[in-house]
């Protein structure tokens, strides 16, 4: 009986409060909509402001130096008293080689790890491995650089009998480890998303487990793996802190065992001392612009590839 009155009291009170709240709810909804819209606009504004700023501050030096001399000049000597040179080809090639090297090493390694985690490993082992991989993603890049500098660089020096072990190879190895987590995580998710029926059909037709993985599962997860590679490229090409500590930082044309400078590290290493208003400083902005366009280009190209594969 008591319950009944309570319920009827509630029923009586509810419509009234709803009537009251109706306007308030609408109002809150509208405000929240506006706030969300503003947040979206803020993100767009950041992209726009950064793009415009880079264009405005990067173009003067390119015009002064000349696009061809800037992009394809092999000598970088911005503070030379005689005949200063502003060629960034060494940086461009180093960034391309370094990223390519990290992808060549990191993708097979990451993909195998993902296959292991998604298909082969017993749940307990998979759990431990997955935790380790996500821990890898949480390590700050400066720590990668530090470990690279103290462990990897001397090891490379001893192994190859060099005077100094700070070289492109060291940077590639550090980058490889750094891009592993994103490759492993994204590939694993896409491998898991492959419908069980595909694999079961393949196994039922008499294919072995390994055949099934490489001929059915991996091709079916192709677009996810491509996304993983895009993420890896993005992380590798934009990294500065870790590789500035292991790559030696000399503006040489790149080769595996010489000291090299990346686009990112070229900006980071000279910005602090470049005099305000000097062509050197402006040229550093131009490098930033090139790096920015470069990353955009890679993203667009890879996205197109991913999309065209999806449509098929």
């Amino acid at each position, binding site marked *: 009986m008591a319950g009944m009155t309570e319920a009827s009291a509630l029923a009586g009170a509810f419509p009234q409060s709803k009537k009251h709240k109706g306007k308030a709810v609408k109002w809150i909804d509208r405000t929240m909509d506006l706030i969300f819209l503003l947040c979206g606009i803020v993100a767009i504004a950041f992209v726009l402001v950064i793009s415009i700023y880079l264009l405005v501050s990067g173009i003067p030096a390119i015009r002064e130096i000349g696009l061809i001399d800037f992009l394809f000049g092999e000598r970088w000597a911005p*503070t030379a008293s005689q005949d200063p040179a502003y060629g960034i080809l060494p940086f461009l090639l180093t960034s391309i080689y370094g990223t390519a090297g990290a992808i060549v090493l990191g993708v097979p390694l990451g993909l195998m790890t993902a296959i292991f985690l998604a298909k082969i490993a017993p749940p307990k082992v998979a759990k431990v491995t997955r935790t380790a991989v996500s821990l890898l993603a949480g390590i700050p890049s400066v720590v990668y650089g530090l470990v690279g500098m103290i462990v990897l660089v001397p090891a490379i020096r001893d192994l190859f009998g060099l005077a*100094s072990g700070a070289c492109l190879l060291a940077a590639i190895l550090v980058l490889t480890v750094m891009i592993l987590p994103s490759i492993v995580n994204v590939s694993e998710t896409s491998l898991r998303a492959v419908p069980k029926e595909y694999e079961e059909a393949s196994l039922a037709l008499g294919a072995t487990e390994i055949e099934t993985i490489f001929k059915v599962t991996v091709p079916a997860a192709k677009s996810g793996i491509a996304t993983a590679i895009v993420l890896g490229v993005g992380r590798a090409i934009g990294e500065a802190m870790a590789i500035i500590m292991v790559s030696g930082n000399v503006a040489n044309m790149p080769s595996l065992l010489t000291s090299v400078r990346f686009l990112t590290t070229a900006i980071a290493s000279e910005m602090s001392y470049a005099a305000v208003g000097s062509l050197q400083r402006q040229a550093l902005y131009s490098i930033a612009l090139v790096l920015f366009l470069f990353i955009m280009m890679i993203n667009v190209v890879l996205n197109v590839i991913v999309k065209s594969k999806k449509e098929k």
Partner: protein
Amino acid sequence: MRKIMATMLAGILALSMVACGGSSSSSAAASEPAASTPASSAAETSSSEATGTELSGSVSTNGSTSMENVIGILSEQFMADNAGVTVTYDPTGSGTGIDAALNGTTDIGLSSRALTDEETANGLVGTNVALDGIAIIVNAENPITDLSLEQIASIYTGEVADWSEVGGNAGAIATIGREAGSGTRDGFESITGTEDACVLSQELTSTGAVIEAVRSNPAAIGYASLSSVEGQEGIVALTVGGVACSEETVLDGTYAIQRPFVLVTKEGQELSPAAQAFYDYALSADAADLIREAGAVPVA
């Protein structure tokens, strides 16, 4: 374009009218410096009018990029002590700084080399505020303890590529230097005569990184300012031509890889009270610790 030109021309004309009190026939180009000089002297007189115990006004310094740390730390302290004064610093290079002192476009010019005879003949006065000693460091495992200035130069230019050529154990030399624009690099290269000719194995962006790289590599040689090398383990500062790098040898001039930090003023031209106070402060004993903190050897 035409509009801009027209506006500029009009501006220059107006400026020359004001400067010359309406007297015509002087060319715009000639009248421009004439227009700026009275303006700056007016500023000086206005700041000297404000004398008393409270200093106010601004002190402009202009010149050597290598002196950034020293001037930075001194001006910070000076501005903290004298709230009304702003000290500005333009890192333009020693040459520009000396010119600016000569033209009177700056209160105090900064030079990281001694003035030439010609410059002093033009009426410039250079006063050393500090000395910059650059230590040459190698790994503690390296048996080498002494190199001559010529040997150091030829190691850095790549003529000497193996430690055995300068009396060490056989093995390639890893030359470690600083990035373009660094004052230490500028100092090292100008003293050893290796400007723009250095062949480096590693180009690092801080003194600490150079020391760390030398510490971890038995084949490495590097350079770093004297103050940062003292008390470091795992590295050894070489004697250069038999002279150890220390504050005393830098002060008495026997250590070769050093250069002066010079405050440049013009003879006969009185500094504004604020500028004079800053000048005196920089040369006082109070500033010595700060200069040492900034990595240089104080002379006071």
